[in-house]
């Protein structure tokens, strides 16, 4: 069953009608509905293409958060071999919001890390909806250290509403954990590549995306604050999330213009949620290309370039 988004309602109606016709035909052998049904299919296909051609920023937020999109786990399972999860921060706990460990990407050993949101109620709670606690960041630092010591590239997959705003998380130093992750990331003498596969939420995301190369899926988002949060603060009305989403420039297309990301990875028509396999493959190709770009760089150059990249952030605005 397809989970339709609000703006996909017209599409749901057409696809529903086609489905109804076919169901009717199944119970009534004399009826020939195929012609009509396939016309509806065609109409749906065109509508889907049109809908996704001109998605608004807010619509992209909905797509980026779509529960059927491939998540971190799917990418790791389909793109990596010999994935060996490594757990714990050696200090307090293992954070299940963060997946990470050793793996091979096209045979080459790497460290892969990412936020996993979960796919049903049980796993979502287990994964804390992809919101990491300090343990998750400290686990990430540990894995990055491992990568650094053994010369393994780091591949990160970003998909989080943000760092977890909880009591324990604050007590155990959420801010410090995030700050140290960014600091560690900036010091790595190995290639670091990031892909924002869904939601790049605030400080919780940037600590995972302080990379030499940052790519974003076509309909993913990356923002300093959620549009809802921004609307309630600046518009004093959470219902103004559409306006806030526009103003924040959180789409991959705007972020490429601003020089915040390096490339956009195209999604299948109708978004990654309609063809997970194609989206995963596209991400795999992008990771391969980004790692290739960095393969010949010396360790010092990797550090220097990464730092310079972030020092230069914001030197051009949208108008530039």
């Amino acid at each position: 069953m397809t989970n339709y988004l609000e703006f996909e309602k017209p599409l749901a109606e057409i696809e529903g009608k086609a489905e109804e016709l076919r169901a009717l035909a199944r119970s009534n052998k004399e009826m020939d509905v195929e012609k009509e049904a396939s016309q509806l299919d065609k109409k749906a296909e065109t509508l889907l293409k049109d809908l996704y051609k001109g998605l608004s920023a807010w619509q992209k937020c909905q797509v980026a958060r779509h529960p059927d999109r491939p998540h971190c786990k799917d990418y790791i399972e389909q793109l990596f071999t010999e994935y060996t999860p490594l757990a714990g921060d050696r200090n307090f706990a293992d954070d299940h919001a963060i997946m990470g460990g050793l793996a091979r990407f096209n045979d080459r050993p790497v460290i892969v890390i990412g936020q996993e949101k979960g796919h049903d109620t049980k796993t979502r709670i287990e994964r804390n909806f992809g919101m990491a606690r300090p343990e998750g960041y400290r686990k990430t630092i540990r894995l990055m250290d491992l990568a650094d010591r053994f010369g393994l590239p780091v591949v990160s997959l970003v998909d989080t509403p943000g760092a977890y705003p909880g009591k324990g998380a604050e007590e155990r130093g959420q801010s410090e954990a995030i700050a140290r992750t960014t600091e560690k990331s900036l010091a790595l003498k190995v290639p670091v590549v990031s892909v924002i596969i869904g939601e790049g939420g605030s400080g919780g995301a940037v600590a995972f995306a302080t990379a030499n190369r940052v790519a974003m899926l076509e309909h993913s988002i990356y923002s300093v604050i959620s549009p809802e949060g921004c609307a309630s603060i600046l518009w004093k009305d959470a219902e103004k999330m559409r306006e806030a989403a526009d103003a924040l420039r959180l789409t991959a297309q705007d972020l490429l213009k601003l020089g915040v990301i390096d490339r956009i990875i195209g999604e299948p028509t109708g978004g990654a949620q309609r063809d997970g396999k194609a989206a995963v493959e596209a991400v795999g190709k992008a990771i391969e290309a980004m790692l290739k770009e960095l393969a010949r760089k010396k360790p010092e150059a990797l550090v220097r370039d990464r730092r310079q990249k972030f020092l230069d952030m914001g030197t051009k605005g949208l108008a530039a």
Partner: protein
Amino acid sequence: MNWITNYVRPTINSLFSRREVPENLWTKCPECGTMLFHRELSDNLNVCTNCDHHMHLTPRERFKHLFDGGVFTEVKVPQPVADPLQFRDQKRYPDRLKAAQKETGEKEAMLVVEGEIGRTPVVAAGQDFSFMAGSMGLYVGNAVVAAAERAVQLKRPLIMFSAAGGARMQEGILSLMQMPRTTVAVQMLKEAGLPYIVVLTHPTTGGVTASYAMLGDIHIAEPNALICFAGPRVIEQTIREKLPEGFQRAEYLLDHGMLDRVTHRKAIRDELMTVLRMLLGEPPAVKGDLPAPEPAAEPAAETPTPATEPEAAAETAETKTPEPPKADASEPVEPKK
């Protein structure tokens, strides 16, 4: 002399500027309700004389009390692209900025200066909560980078006084990018072997806490300062329970291992001197108020010099040091490309 003079004297600044405030004006302490004369409050660094509640203090006021003779020189901060996202909420972002400039008399939310504290040369940066809640955008990022570069250039420690409601939302993703960007600045200091001391003041929250404010060699906080990543209201909404008294306050963070010290505002100057001079391998400092450094610096006096008339000290700082401590001190810092 500079753009400040082009503005009407700011309302907030004048609250604490003795020159302009009639003696009979008073402030009510928000904590204990005591009525405090401005003069008394200002002399006490905006700390309530009755209950020790630490009220807001602008970086400019703070620096007047921090530096020897109240003298410091501003370090130039490169001006970033204006309104990079062409952001508009209920107001246009440039209008919000202009309003904040008019209200505070400051250019932006961080002031970077250099000067001497107990004859210890330092670079200091102060975040101004009264300017759009001290929020971190491109300018604050530039200020942190400029402060670090200046410190490295002069081989001086950097003292960071943090205060922020979080990121400058009107600069969207570019404000978020200041987290790694300012972290690069901190790394410059560490690689140069220079002390980086953070003084966390009320409130320091969000992306600022999760970057340069939590990466100090030493973390000192003012009493009862709110220091957090996610604010208490957000947490209460998430976990649907009331948070304990004092949660995310300086003393609470000290208990949870996130800070080195919680220090009364009036003791911070001496503490900075003591700590810095030990880190730098210098002999103990001469404490107490010192006059402004001489151009050709004399060795520090053996006995504390009597306090300079604060009136005069304030004057000097306001008109910008006529005699900067170092010949090249007022050289503008080139923005790093």
